[in-house]
């Protein structure tokens, strides 16, 4: 990196967006489909007059499009405001709002905060919650999950793809094992990071409830859905005008619903082509593992969504990597979060056994259908340069505490 070049860094650079797990751009076809509902088609879908009926038709069409994407029935789709509401409805609806005052819930240590949050609330209200551990590749063991099942287990909620590492959980196997023994236990999966990226088939997964979100697959923000298997009674957590079969009261977000419908239709149509593109980008990106020493993939190499790679760049502080990349117009994420003024390592990475230091040295890259091979190449080069510089100027112990049980030691990438 030439010094003079950096001094001139105030020059505007083109952005390379590699944070698709955070959110995706809205496809032009999606925004075009939404536009009439921002302007002329302002009716309330609950109204019986023509403007209301026209909008109702659009809502029902979107329901069919979303159902088709996951091989569900349109009558099983409930629109929500997004993943947080979907997950809260599934977890709190099947417990607190079902009139129960106690019981057992099984989840995992690597869930999204919108699952962990309601689980912690339940704990504070007298429920008992177990958090399944994961192995070094971020996978739960379905056989081990069985050991946690109790007579009073009400709900099992485990995500399909992890948002930080992209690793897929063996949900089909988990569901089969549990349902064989206890068909009464409700199984929910947060499939937000999987839907639209890999084929998701609710019949194959065997779950009872599934959450998804529009803005993770090129739809708008503020719209999500729950798929609830026919016959499963899920009490609502919002009460009011009985929209969405009473499960989600509140006037429908018509514009968002039309948007998620269109995004679902496109995801279903383009799936194979986009999937090939994403896998190609991943393999190209992962050459970083060979070209940059002391670099480790956090997550499973094959059992993953194809759009994510979480890398531990040992000896380089993830926050500094992120900031330097941002300066070059490259947008990525780190898993660590600032809480009460101190930095906490990612709960997902520490659950995988990473030391504090290794977790702080980890960064997430996530790409999408708009990402080009050239952009991946530019990012790989930038990461190599920045990491090399940071390793030269930082003492590993300044970043965080190392731990001899950290997987990096077992896999030959130790800092010795």
């Amino acid at each position, binding site marked *: 990196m*030439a*010094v003079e070049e950096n*001094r001139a860094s105030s020059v505007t650079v083109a952005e390379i967006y590699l944070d698709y797990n955070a959110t995706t751009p809205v496809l032009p076809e999606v925004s075009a489909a939404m536009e009439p509902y921002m302007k002329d088609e302002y009716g309330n879908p609950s109204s019986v007059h023509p403007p209301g009926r026209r909008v109702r038709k659009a809502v029902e069409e979107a329901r069919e499009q979303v159902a088709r994407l996951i091989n569900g029935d349109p009558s099983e789709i409930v629109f929500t405001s997004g993943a947080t509401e979907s997950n809260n409805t599934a977890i709190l609806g099947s417990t607190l709002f079902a009139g129960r005052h106690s019981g057992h819930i099984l989840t995992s240590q690597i869930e999204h905060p919108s699952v962990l949050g309601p689980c912690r609330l339940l704990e504070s209200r007298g429920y008992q919650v177990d958090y399944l551990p994961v192995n070094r590749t971020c996978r739960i063991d379905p056989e081990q999950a069985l050991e946690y099942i109790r007579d009073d287990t009400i709900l099992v909620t485990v995500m399909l793809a992890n948002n930080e590492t992209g690793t897929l959980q063996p949900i089909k196997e988990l569901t089969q094992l549990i349902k064989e023994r206890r068909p009464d236990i409700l199984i929910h999966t947060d499939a937000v990071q999987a839907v639209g990226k890999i084929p998701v088939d609710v019949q194959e997964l065997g779950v009872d409830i599934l959450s998804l979100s529009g803005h993770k697959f090129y739809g708008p923000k503020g719209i999500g859905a729950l798929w609830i298997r026919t016959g499963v009674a899920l009490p609502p957590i919002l009460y009011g005008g009985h929209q969405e079969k009473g499960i989600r009261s509140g006037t429908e977000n018509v514009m968002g619903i039309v948007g998620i419908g269109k995004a679902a239709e496109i995801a279903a149509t383009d799936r194979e082509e986009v999937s090939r593109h994403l896998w190609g980008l991943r393999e190209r990106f992962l050459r970083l593992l060979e070209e940059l020493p002391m670099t480790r993939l956090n997550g499973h190499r094959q059992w993953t969504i194809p759009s994510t790679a979480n890398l531990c760049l040992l000896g380089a502080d993830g*926050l500094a990597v992120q*900031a330097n990349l941002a300066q070059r117009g490259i947008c990525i994420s780190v898993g660590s979060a*600032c809480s009460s003024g101190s930095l906490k390592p990612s709960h997902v990475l520490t659950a995988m056994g990473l030391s504090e230091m290794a977790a702080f040295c980890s960064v997430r890259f996530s790409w999408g259908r708009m990402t080009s091979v050239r952009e991946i190449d530019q990012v790989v080069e930038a990461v190599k340069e920045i990491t090399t510089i940071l390793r*030269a*100027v*930082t003492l590993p112990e*300044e970043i965080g505490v190392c731990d001899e049980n950290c997987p990096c030691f077992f896999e030959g990438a130790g800092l010795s």
Partner: protein
Amino acid sequence: MENKNVQILIIESVEPCDECKRAEEISYALAERYPDVLVRVITVLDPEADRYGVVMTPTIVVNGVIISVRRAPDPQRLEALIEKLKGGVLQ
């Protein structure tokens, strides 16, 4: 801005924390020994800070490269970096 080969920019919180102060001490001590070093201190409210996407303080920038976030740099490593930069190029 003076024409010096090594420019250290320290981006601090409005009320500097202990690490911010330590970053200043370390940098000014090196600037006394290396005439080629210029140290500047700004707060997160300075528009220049926006350019570096500051998420935590202190953020230490050397010749445009963010070398440390949330901690003062290690004095020996920073000195080694200055030695390299006196020649002009950071690699």
